[in-house]
């Protein structure tokens, strides 16, 4: 589904982040991206979302070259990206409005499914961080995406809320057959959600370091999950000078 074909990218007057970087991802897969701050994780997500364009090479989704935001790609950002002047309901239906679609029933369905129906008429600043994140997820899913990009979506939440939303992400990914790409700082989160884990260390990135994690963990104390965490921790302790 996603083909990253020999892309290079750097911001104006910034260092090179990707050089001749290639990657392939199948439909319905979930991939976590982990790495230190400033390594280009979020930029990679923006490239996939069509918000920035590679300086060389190309990204294709379902065979189509990405040249701007794609209709069936949804993006959820670190601080949720909710508009403070729109209520929860108005935020959820924003994408539909922009596309000129009336989607009252779809909107109501996702508000109910994500348990935010009761706060539908509240503004984002009036609800909890978990509810805000659920609103951002509802806003993304109401557009019936096939690719969900998430940039550290749970980083500002408390542990129980974070875990319940991680569970929800895995559940939705399976139910909706979504391709999920999640950027995270947390090793456990990467191992829990990502069936493949892309490790980004020191830029510029040339060859992807991919850790395969095919088994869906049965819980957070699943031995397989802990083993992947240990492996990731070991790899991330490798000095930054490692030439990959």
């Amino acid at each position, binding site marked *: 589904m996603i083909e990253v074909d020999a892309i290079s990218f750097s911001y104006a007057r910034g260092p090179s982040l990707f050089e001749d970087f290639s990657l392939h991802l199948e439909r319905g897969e979930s991939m976590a991206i982990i790495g230190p701050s400033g390594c280009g994780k979020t930029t990679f997500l923006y490239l996939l979302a069509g918000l920035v364009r590679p300086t060389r090479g190309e990204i294709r989704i379902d065979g189509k070259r990405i040249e701007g935001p794609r209709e069936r790609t949804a*993006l959820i950002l670190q601080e949720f990206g909710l*508009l403070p*002047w*729109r209520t929860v309901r108005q935020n959820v239906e924003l994408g539909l409005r*922009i596309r000129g679609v009336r989607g009252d029933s779809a909107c109501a369905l996702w508000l109910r499914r994500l348990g935010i129906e009761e706060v539908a008429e*509240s503004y984002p*600043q*009036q*609800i909890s961080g978990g509810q805000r994140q659920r609103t951002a997820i509802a806003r993304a899913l109401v557009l019936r995406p096939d690719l969900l990009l998430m940039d550290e979506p749970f980083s500002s939440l408390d542990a129980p809320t974070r875990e319940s939303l991680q569970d929800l992400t895995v559940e939705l990914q399976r139910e909706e057959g979504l391709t999920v790409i999640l950027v995270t700082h947390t090793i456990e989160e990467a191992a829990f959600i990502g069936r493949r884990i892309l490790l980004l260390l020191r830029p510029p990135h040339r060859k992807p370091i991919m850790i395969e994690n095919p088994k869906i963990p049965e819980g957070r104390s699943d031995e397989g999950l802990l083993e992947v965490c240990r492996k990731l921790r070991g790899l991330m302790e490798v000095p930054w000078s490692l030439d990959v």
Partner: protein
Amino acid sequence: MELRRLNVLFALLSILFAWHILSILISKPILPPPLRVLEVFVRSFPSELGRHAAASLKRVALSILLAICSAAPLGILLGQIGSLNRLLSPFVYVLYPVPKVVFVPIVILFFGIGDFAKILMIFIILFFQILVLARDSALSLRPELILSVKSLGAKKRHLFVYVFLPATLPAIFTGIRQSIGTAIAVLYVAELFATRYGLGYFIYLTGTTLFDYPLMYAGILAMGLLGFGLYFLTDFLEARVCPWRFSQHG
């Protein structure tokens, strides 16, 4: 809100009380007591004073409306379109700090002494105030907010309607609120020149030609009420147009 209203009422009564005491202490016709002024105000408003107040209200309201309709969209566009901002901002930078009152004689020379010149003068002051606040507010929007809406497929016009316009509305209201005092001061100055109607003219005429001090104070009261009314209307409209600003945090 209830407490705020009570505080405003308390402040108003305190000012009236201080005025009353001062008028007793001074005991001269140049400072009549507030009740006497109020009596003259009520008597003269339906006829003479009301006509002058209506003329002033028309001028200042038209200026505000024109300034909002032109400066707000332009300010937002400057904040939204980098190239346009780079082109026009140097002009704004040069013109913004110039006190606009100095343009009064120039405007009169070019446009005469009619209503248009008066409206134009107040418009110029409000225009820059609203323009700069709207532009700065649009420029300070968090980039991730814009990116998140862009990722939903938003084009420039969607960003204008759903992001930039609502984000800058509070700044536009602040601009109006900040400019009302100056606008009315300029209205007073503008109405001193060859006009037959307007509170500025009325106050000047009753105070320096007719020496009818209670009537002059009634004119000043009307001008104060005009400013207060516009300020109150701005607050009222902001609460209606920007309800999220007044929502209680969770």
